[in-house]
């Protein structure tokens, strides 16, 4: 089938009845699942799959993808308003999103996050369509050595996210790495740092930690300080800045594009995980910005970068699932099961015989992202007003919401205690000016880095460093670490010379 024919056949498929109607039905479900902390796309898929029995394959895709595509769009809303990420990858949105809400710019942050996630979703779907011809070599080029180097590159961003003190940032990052080691070590079968608690054998879930570190810590802070989430009343409550947020996205189009491509590529590579995508994009934004001082205090660029990554990676994650019948993530594994129930077996034929179906999926991703944002944007102004409410009203709400999310994620009572513990740690970090981003980065990337290092050494020995792609990533990492040092040194020298 000619590619152009397939694109048009895909479009008419995606807009046909009842597929389009079913998609409209599940988009709000996806948004709500995203907004409720602890419920993620996987749970949504597991709940919706029984309804697809007897559906045509196309209708079934539309029904499931409509929901799955927009979960992270919803997940950013509580991240910005309450510092409670709706899903794991939304944790990165908290870093800049909530400080914006504190500055009275919740509306602007919501506008930027929603628009950027829509653009990310669309660009991700388009990128997915573009890479179809080269998908095989691209996916297979990244193995454990490359994962290890990518994780190292991500960890190098700790230096950028450290805020006022590099030393404090490194300490937080180191603590994050140690926390990532909690649980069963696959290399030895020994349980580490579990103190005999069986629930800790699998390690600590990222949502459990983030809810504590951000939401609970914020509740403690609010309880002590009083007032409202938004400290500044100067912001115009009526206009609420939603439009400004939308404009910010268009002004940072180049950043949106870069982060969408990065997010998409990370989605395509199975094994790095969705949580990493948003953080790597945040790090990338920090690295390339001219307004480094504003980061950590509520910079709209940070929100734009992380949210472009969430939805763009969903398009990427579909690729290995469709191309090899091998899902890149647990969510995709559930989706693959659904595909088989619908009577489609993914594999090479997907891109030859069923290309129109693949493009229907691309179109569904595009439409779902647009419609989701069309639903949310008009409500964003109203939602932003919540941040101006008295804290005595907000504290119980945030606390229940956050702890419920922590419980729903793992269904373990013990994890609520862990969340509270991290709440105290988070408050301490905030008070003594330790950036929390490096801690999360250490947790997210620590496990990937350790595992990939062991597997690489087992497979290739130390020579794994010299595999071409791994080596290039290593060089880029070294350059990002040492170039600023060199530049500072050179500048100092120049100043000395001129003063002589």
């Amino acid at each position, binding site marked *: 089938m000619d590619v152009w024919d397939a694109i048009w056949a895909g479009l008419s498929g995606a807009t046909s009845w009842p597929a389009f109607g079913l998609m409209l039905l599940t988009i709000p479900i996806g948004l709500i699942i995203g907004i409720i902390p602890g419920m993620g796309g*996987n*749970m949504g*898929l*597991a709940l919706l799959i029984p309804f697809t*029995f007897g559906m045509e394959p196309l209708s079934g895709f539309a029904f499931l993808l409509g929901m799955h595509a927009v979960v992270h769009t919803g997940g950013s809303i509580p991240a910005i308003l309450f510092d409670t990420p709706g899903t794991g990858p939304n944790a990165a949105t908290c870093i800049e999103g909530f400080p914006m809400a504190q500055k009275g710019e919740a509306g602007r942050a919501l506008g930027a996050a929603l628009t950027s996630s829509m653009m990310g979703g669309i660009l991700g779907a388009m990128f997915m369509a573009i890479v179809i011809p080269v998908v095989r070599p691209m*996916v*297979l080029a990244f*193995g*454990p050595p490359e994962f290890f180097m990518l994780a190292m590159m991500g960890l190098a961003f700790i230096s950028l996210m450290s805020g006022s003190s590099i030393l404090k940032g490194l300490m937080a990052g180191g603590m994050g790495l140690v926390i990532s080691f909690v649980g*069963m*070590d*696959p*290399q*030895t*079968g*020994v*349980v580490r740092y579990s103190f005999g608690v*069986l*629930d800790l*054998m*699998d390690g600590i879930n990222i949502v459990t930690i983030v809810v504590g570190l951000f939401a609970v810590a914020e509740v403690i802070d609010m309880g002590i300080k009083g007032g409202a989430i938004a400290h500044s009343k100067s912001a115009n409550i009526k206009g609420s800045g939603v439009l400004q947020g939308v404009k910010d996205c268009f002004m940072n189009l180049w950043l949106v594009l870069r982060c969408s491509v990065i997010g998409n590529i990370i989605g395509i590579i*199975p*094994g790095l995980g969705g949580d990493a995508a948003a953080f790597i994009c945040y790090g990338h934004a920090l690295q390339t910005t001219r307004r480094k001082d504003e980061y950590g205090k509520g910079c709209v660029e940070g929100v734009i970068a992380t949210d472009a990554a969430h939805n763009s990676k969903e398009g990427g994650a579909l690729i*290995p699932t469709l191309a*090899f*019948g*091998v*899902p*890149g993530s*647990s*969510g995709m*594994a*559930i989706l*693959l*099961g659904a595909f*088989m*129930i619908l009577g489609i*077996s*993914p*594999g*090479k034929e997907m891109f030859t015989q069923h290309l129109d179906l693949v493009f229907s999926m691309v179109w569904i991703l595009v439409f779902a992202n647009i419609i989701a944002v069309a639903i949310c944007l008009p409500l964003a102004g109203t939602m932003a007003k919540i941040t101006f409410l008295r804290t005595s009203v907000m504290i119980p709400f945030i606390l229940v919401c956050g702890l419920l999310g922590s419980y729903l994620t*793992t*269904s*373990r009572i013990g994890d609520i205690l862990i969340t509270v513990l991290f709440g105290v740690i988070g408050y301490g970090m905030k008070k003594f000016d330790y950036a929390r981003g490096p801690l999360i980065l250490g947790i997210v990337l620590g496990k990937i880095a350790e*595992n*990939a290092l*062991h*597997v690489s050494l*087992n*497979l290739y020995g130390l020579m794994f460093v010299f595999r071409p792609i791994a080596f290039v990533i290593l060089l880029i990492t070294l350059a990002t670490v040492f170039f600023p040092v060199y530049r500072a040194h050179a500048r100092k020298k120049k100043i000395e010379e001129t003063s002589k």
Partner: protein
Amino acid sequence: MGTKSRCPCFVLGVFLLLSFAAPFSATAAPSDIDFFKGKTVTYIVSTKTGGGYDTYGRLIARYLQKYLPGSRVIVKNVPGAGHIIGANTIYQAEPDGLTIGTFNTGLIYSQIIGQEGIQFDLNKFSWIGKANSETRVFVVGAKTPYKTFKEIMDSKAPIKMPSSGVGSEDHNETLILASALPAKFQPIPGYQGKEAEMAILRGEVPAVLGSYTGLSGLIAAKEGRVLMQYGSEHGIPELKSVPHINSIEVTPKGKSLINLVNSIDIIGRLTAAPPGMPAGRLQVLRDAYRKALTDPELIKDAKKYHLDLDPAYGDDVQKLVAEGINQPAENIRTLKNIIKTKE
């Protein structure tokens, strides 16, 4: 007020009556069936939502409810520590028939070597039934030179194979089969879930072990070739020409290890209740399970989900588990030597 104070006495009376009567009857008395009326039965699945155990669990729970009249059967996911937390939870639950559940049969290995965190004894569970026998396969990547399993066994160089981690079922099975055949399998731990299949696609490792259902995508996409099957022999049509492990000649010691691996794989997707259940109530659950698994509607649903069925019930499952666990002392020593975790 009067009824309020009488109520607990009444319940206690019934409870005492039941607990005395129970050991004498192995058939389900009407009172045992009535017990489930208006009650909620919790079916524990030892993994997260989604995936094989969850799908089987939810399907079985739905039909158990149909055959426990007046009851509600809900599924609760208790994931963690490679099914150990779920199995512990079921084992420690009140043995009143209101908590049952499912976990991985590979825990038999974990119990034999005495893995950390185990608070159960598989010999003591009240077994209700099992839904499937697992056919497991040895698959090599499509681009590898291996054409027969003999070439694998003759290989002088180690055959690297992905495993999810030291102590996990796939890791243990790789080591046990390596020693039993013998073959130079070298498990590489650190591949979670579907990463193992990616490793085959990328060509990092030549071969992988796994369940046929789990690897069928890879096989159907012609990215891998099946060279050998083991576990259940109940016959998957696609694997007709693939030799079964039982046809390979091995030493007597190797044979007994292979029998162990096969027997564990045959007890797939089990359902268990806590130890010390009143016999009558256990019988009700076993009857309901049998009716559920033979219900034509369940069989139809299972087909839709692409779930295989090969059920067995009650005492038969109890016997299979006991055979697996109660190995001769020499076998246990060998096993401990093969699969012990690094200190």
